[in-house]
């Protein structure tokens, strides 16, 4: 029973992280219409930034969030303005932009990954912070996981309020629903796209810092995170925040269960199995109504 509770709790923590990370991707893909294959690389970059701040300057990753998240926002704004805006301008159709953004960010993936390999090497890294056991629901959970989950919930909640209650957030949701109609009601779609892309980058950086508190990571791991975030976004339905969270939790639980009871080497296979199931049964996502 204890083992089951422990597995469930780890699954919820991991699922919360996947949900948070996928929220950023759904902003980038659902609103900015950029299919960002370098997404996971930015997560790993945030992991390394947190590691570096912790070991070199002794800054706790939770304080580091205050530094890394705004920096990631600015960096992603620059990436969008310099690399992606030209593609948006030249795209003849949404499909052409999708293909172009896939190709451009695939190249970016190798640039960012190569920079991290050159700077930090390919070895697995981790650091120990808040490694205090906390008894919870009959199981023992390290404090760092719980803190990471709490922060993920807080950040996800703040994002939800921002999108639901503010003027800027409403504009973003309008663009997500229909970019052409959004323009007609006076929304600056290009500005909204840049904002959404940068906000997505800030979210993935936050996810990276939180994940680095309890997972080992290396420079080559970004692809797997991108893959999982994409699967969560598709499972939840593109642009659907609640669907994203539910799908993230589902994936986290499925992976943890497979790792605990079948084999840790098969977690990506579990991701793909879920993905296949969704593609066959509900291609518009768990909560989607229309197929694209």
């Amino acid at each position, binding site marked *: 029973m204890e083992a089951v509770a422990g597995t469930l709790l780890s699954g919820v923590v991991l699922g919360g992280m996947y949900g948070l990370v996928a929220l950023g991707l759904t902003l980038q893909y659902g609103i900015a219409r950029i*299919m960002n*294959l370098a997404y996971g690389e930015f997560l790993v970059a945030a992991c390394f930034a947190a590691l570096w701040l912790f070991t070199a300057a002794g800054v706790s990753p939770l304080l580091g969030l205050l530094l890394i998240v705004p920096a990631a926002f600015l960096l992603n704004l620059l990436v969008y303005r310099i*690399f992606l805006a*030209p*593609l948006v301008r*030249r795209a003849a159709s949404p*499909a052409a932009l*999708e*293909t*172009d953004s*896939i*190709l*451009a960010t*695939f*190249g*970016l*993936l*190798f*640039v*960012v*990954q*190569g*920079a991290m*390999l*050159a700077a930090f090497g390919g070895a697995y890294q981790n650091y120990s912070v808040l490694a205090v056991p906390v008894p919870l629901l009959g199981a023992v959970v390290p404090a760092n996981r719980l803190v990471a989950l709490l922060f993920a919930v807080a950040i996800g909640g703040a994002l939800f309020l921002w999108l639901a209650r503010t003027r800027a957030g409403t504009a973003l949701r309008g663009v997500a629903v229909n970019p052409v109609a959004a323009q007609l009601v006076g929304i600056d779609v290009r500005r909204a796209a840049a904002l959404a892309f940068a906000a997505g980058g800030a979210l993935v950086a936050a996810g990276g810092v939180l994940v680095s508190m309890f997972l080992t990571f290396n420079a080559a791991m970004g*692809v*797997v995170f*991108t*893959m999982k975030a*994409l*699967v969560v976004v*598709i499972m939840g339905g593109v642009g659907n925040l609640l669907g994203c969270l539910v799908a993230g939790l589902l994936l986290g639980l499925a992976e943890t269960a497979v790792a605990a009871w079948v*084999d840790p*080497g*098969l977690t*990506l*296979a579990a*991701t*793909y199995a879920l*993905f*296949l199931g969704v*593609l*066959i049964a509900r*291609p518009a996502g768990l909560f989607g109504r229309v*197929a*694209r």
Partner: protein
Amino acid sequence: MSLRAFGLALAALAALALLPWLDTGFWLALGIGIAQYAVLATAWALFSGPTGYVSLASAAFFGIGAYAVAVLGEALPWPVVLLVAAALGVAVSLLVGFATLRLSGVYFVVFTFGLAELIRQLVTWFEVNVTRTIGRYVFLDATQAGIYWQLLALFALLLAAGTWIGRSRLGFALRVIGGDEVVARHVGIDTARAKIALFAVSALFMAVTGAVMAPRWTYIDPAIAFNPVISFQVLIMALLGGAHRLLGPLLGVVPLTLLFELLNAHFPNHASILLGAVFMLVVYAVPRGVIGLLPLLRRRAVA
């Protein structure tokens, strides 16, 4: 490709087949590298060119072929091994095709994006838990010249298949799909079947290329066979050359194989950054490939 162009290409390949009698060292190795990527990039463009569906799974099919040799190479005669590699590549491509190609293109991209990593993990898991070995030795008496000739023959076959498809109803259907998929469906084309069929042909050639190349390594483990850099290089070469013409990718393969040799030799630690930068440059500067620039030049010359 016209039949005359196909004949010329065959003659050129026959001339290139003489290379092993001129040099068996550096130039032959370079020839193998170019021939390998010529097959892979052309096979990639065979599917992705007309349909516009970006496949990121070249390494998966290449690795399947290479691993088939690692497991079966000593147990079965060579032609049978090649057939098994081809069959495995086709089987996996059909699975991927049936799951994703009936839906919109983005699902296909996402699925292929992680496919090489998935198969690598599955093979690793199988080897650790069932056979209890990671990494296999391939002791086959294959010569460099033999590998080179097999790759040239494979390329000739691929060109023949590409020419035939281009002139068949299937090729026409694919061009309509690439133009507008909704229109294609409305004029009665079974779009899913056409896409899946061509994806399988493309995967078959990639898997056999992997099988032919496998004896060069002598030692193979999942990380070598399913190296994501292969997907990346195939993509960039096909894009630089131009994916919408059969011989287009070749124009990207030759310069980039040389460039990557240079980069790997002189900047081994920064090769990935430079590869990525070259890739982005291609996407921004020559979106329709070198072959797409030709009509522009011709028009300018006339004017």
